[in-house]
């Protein structure tokens, strides 16, 4: 940080500034109590307050994540329904082929491919960065969101398809058909409602996978989010930021899991808090 020519004196001053001369357990306590108040200290390289830095970046990442989830659901849900309803027939095999191929596509490569076609050749979207104003923002987030969407879709597809197959062959669906309810009603009212729980589970369980993809994709498209911050801080050895970010990610995962559990209680009458 100080460069390789630092004198012993300046090192000592910096140490006391950073609190590194306090005993280890004291440093730990300080850190946790500060973190609880959302004070992470100052970034070593950027010289800005880490807390506000993370907050600003988190907003961008959150937007990207929501957009990505929507895209991946738009891809995965209809295909899963198609595959489950036409099980073991050609349509199902095609969907599974699609799943296999998209699973093997590196997220960063998918991003580059999309940029090549839709930004460079066709010019519909910007190649990188975040746009100003709602329309530009949406446009600049579209290719990244589609990239992450294709990255997450095969994982969602696999789970959704098998859960739908299970529901479709379950007895109450058979009983509903035997009561003379139309196939459409059976599908919409009975099957989907039950599978809603499965969908939320699948998303919740794979939130780590989703975030991992977002981290890489943010770097591909130079989106100023938590992911790109993580990478730049590792390259520049900005340890306070690295530690703070890891903590933030952990908290996000915990919160998401809590929300998923809560939604069970809402959706499944068999489970009451």
């Amino acid at each position, binding site marked *: 940080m100080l460069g390789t020519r630092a004198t012993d004196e300046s090192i000592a001053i910096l140490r006391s500034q950073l609190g590194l001369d306090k005993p280890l357990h004291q440093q730990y306590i300080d850190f946790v109590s500060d973190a609880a108040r959302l004070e992470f200290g100052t970034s070593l390289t950027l010289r800005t307050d880490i807390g506000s830095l993370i907050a600003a970046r988190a907003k961008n990442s959150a937007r990207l994540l929501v957009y990505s989830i929507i895209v991946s659901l738009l891809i995965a849900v209809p295909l899963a329904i198609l595959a489950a309803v036409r*099980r*073991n027939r050609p349509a199902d095999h095609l969907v599974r082929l699609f799943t296999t191929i998209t699973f093997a596509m590196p997220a960063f490569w998918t991003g580059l491919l999309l940029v090549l076609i839709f930004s460079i050749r066709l010019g519909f979207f910007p190649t990188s960065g975040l746009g100003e104003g709602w329309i530009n923002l949406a446009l600049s987030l579209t290719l990244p969101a589609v990239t992450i969407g294709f990255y997450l879709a095969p994982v969602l597809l696999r789970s959704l398809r098998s859960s739908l197959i299970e529901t479709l*062959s*379950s*007895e*109450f669906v*058979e*009983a*509903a*058909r*035997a*009561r*003379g*309810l*139309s*196939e459409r*009603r059976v599908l919409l*009212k*009975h099957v989907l*409602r*039950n599978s809603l729980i499965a969908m939320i589970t699948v998303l919740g369980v794979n939130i780590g996978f989703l975030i991992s993809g977002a981290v890489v994709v943010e770097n591909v498209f130079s989106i100023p989010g938590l992911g790109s911050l993580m990478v730049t801080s590792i390259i520049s050895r900005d340890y306070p930021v690295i530690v703070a970010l890891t903590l933030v990610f952990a908290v996000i995962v915990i919160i998401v899991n809590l929300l998923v559990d809560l939604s069970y209680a809402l*959706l*499944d*009458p*068999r489970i009451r808090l």
Partner: protein
Amino acid sequence: MALNSNGNQPLLEINDLTIGFADARGILLAADRINLRLFRNQTLGLLGESGCGKSVSMRSILGLVPYPGEVIGGSVLWEGQDLSELSRSEMQKIRGKEISMIFQDPTSCLNPVYTIGNQIVETLKIKLKMNSHEARQRAVELLDHVGIPSPEQRLNLYPHQLSGGMRQRVMIAIAIGSKPKLLLADEPTTALDVTIQDQILNLLADLREETGMAVILVSHDVGVIAQNSDIVAIMYAGRIMECGSASDVMLSPRHPYTRGLLTALPTFEHAGERQPLTSIPGQPPNLADLPGGCPFRPRCQYVRDECASIPVVLDRDFPEHASACPFVD
């Protein structure tokens, strides 16, 4: 085989029905040349071990044979109409209205995320074209009819909040709501305690008397079939082995398999004495790998060489009490 019943046309006629299943493991016939006739106000008991094809045959009446199975031969005639000629929506109209079905496990047959009221009302609104208010009233009447106390409150409960017996009554309520002419009951009491079994069977008997509806009762329990059927058909490996009135089949069985089934029942005559349990020797049949001719050959005590090449059909010479075995009387 036709049972004369005042010379009326049979309500349901199944002719040479054959159902095949094909998947990566091979092909098998879940039902082979099934012939049955059922008249108004009659109860047919379909008796057989698990996997003998009775459930699949029932589902084929409603056109609900699950993939990868399909009907590959024969026909089902409902009030003279060949059901395979009906369009999908016409078939849907019959289901739940003229022909209803109740299932073995009431827990998994009701959708767990909707109240039972919701599910009963849904069926009534669609099948009988009632509005919400009428449907709700009728739902209460139905629940009361099947013996569920405080029906108004129960409407708002979820399936998991009721006992097994109650759930089965709800299923029956939904099934008879539209006053069907035929009720298909697939092992309705198998998943219930013995005392509850009795109650449910009595309920079904009462409903039959009231409405005159025909019933096909499927079970592997000889006692249940014997006590609740007018006609009995015995199924083995997808084929009907014997068919006749309940008293004829139960008291003087003609087919070796039926005889084996009935002798295997422990009786009270020698209670207290040590008697060995007789059972039918051999293993249940593997439908994918049947020997030619009669499928019961490997386990039959009367087997002879000709059994390997006979077609297994009920003999038409004795329509009142027919057996598929031409050698044993």
